[in-house]
């Protein structure tokens, strides 16, 4: 209210209205004053309950918050002015001085019509995908590089096989962790099952299991999982220094040529 008194006594020149920046300046100052008053009270041990300073603080804070978006919009202008004031004069080659030239934004259609008529047909036939993101260029990679990369990946994979993990545990000096075996197929199926039951219980509904999931669960729980006990991963990347050949893995083994479909759509049965 001291400020109000001064303003009403026309001490400040308010003929054109208070400028935005000046208002912000005064608000920040009064906020600081109120804050120091309150911290003084607290350090002296007197209570600050129902203190008018707190109301004033809240009021100033809300006004400052409301001013923030306007401040953001003015930021560019203010920064420019401050920079020119600091540098002491406008530099003619300052790139920020230039505005956008709207004439350059109009596509020059005359150039396009001048393109060769021969090239046009070719252009329309070949499909060029739109350039949206930067893609990794693989053209300059030689055969050697590719082979090296494959070998590196195979080595990394071989390092994390169960055989090497057991070797490492044998020679390590830390305490051994005894855990039940976590085979990857089983953990995946278990995780899916757990997620599904959790969802079902949360939402009070039952799902029907898709064929893929049913087959996976059958595969995991059935006798075929016993075959994987003696199946060890290929570590030829480390022992022989070459990437393992594809074709040994039996995960995605498709039947050699699906049965030919008869007229009615079912497989014809062979009658010997």
């Amino acid at each position, binding site marked *: 209210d001291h400020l109000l008194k001064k303003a009403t006594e026309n001490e400040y020149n308010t003929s054109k209205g208070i400028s935005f920046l000046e208002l912000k300046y005064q608000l920040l100052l009064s906020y600081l004053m109120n804050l120091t008053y309150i911290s003084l009270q607290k350090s002296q041990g007197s209570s600050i309950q129902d203190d008018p300073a707190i109301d004033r603080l809240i009021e100033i804070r809300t006004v400052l918050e409301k001013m923030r978006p306007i401040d953001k919009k003015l930021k560019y202008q203010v920064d420019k002015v401050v920079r020119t004031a600091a540098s002491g004069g406008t530099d003619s080659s300052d790139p920020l001085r230039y505005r956008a030239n709207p004439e350059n934004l109009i596509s020059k259609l005359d150039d396009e019509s001048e393109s060769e008529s021969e090239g046009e047909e070719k252009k329309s036939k070949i499909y060029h995908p739109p350039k949206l993101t930067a893609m990794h260029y693989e053209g300059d990679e030689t055969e050697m590089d590719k082979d090296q990369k494959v070998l590196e990946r195979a080595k990394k994979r071989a390092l994390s096989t169960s055989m090497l993990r057991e070797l490492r545990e044998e020679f390590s000096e830390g305490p051994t962790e005894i855990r039940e075996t976590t085979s990857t197929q089983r953990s995946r199926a278990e995780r899916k099952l757990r997620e599904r039951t959790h969802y*079902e219980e949360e939402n*009070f*509904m039952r799902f029907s299991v898709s064929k893929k999931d049913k087959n996976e669960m059958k595969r995991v729980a059935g006798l075929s999982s016993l075959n994987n006990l003696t199946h060890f991963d290929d570590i030829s990347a480390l022992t022989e220094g070459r990437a393992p050949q594809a074709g040994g893995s039996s995960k995605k083994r498709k039947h050699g040529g699906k049965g030919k479909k008869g007229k009615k759509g079912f497989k014809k049965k062979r009658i010997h």
Partner: protein
Amino acid sequence: MSEGAATIRTRKFMTNRLLCRKQMIVDVLHPGKATIPKTEVREKLAKMYKTTPDVIFCFGFRTKFGGGKTSGFGLIYDSLDFAKKFEPKYRLQRHGLVEIKKTGRKQRKERKNRQKKVRGTKKAKVGAGKKK
């Protein structure tokens, strides 16, 4: 609650005030026996929660692999009127409170094929007469 070596336990009990009901997950333990029919589960739940069995709706019972344990869902409504309002029709039909008319799959498909031959508002008339 054990009777005839079948135990019922409820889990995740929640009172749903918006739908005027209590909902829970029902676990039935029945070692050595087949899955208990829903009507019996309803009776037992009624005894547990001291209500009549006609406001209890249970569904979704799945027996775990190996047998002996079944989990399902149970809803206990505050009154039968609320139950008729909020429950889906097929579950009310299971209790005999609502009759859903079914015209038979073959009939429906034949009617659709007859309608295909006609255009516009005549489609509504076509279904009425069953052509011999």
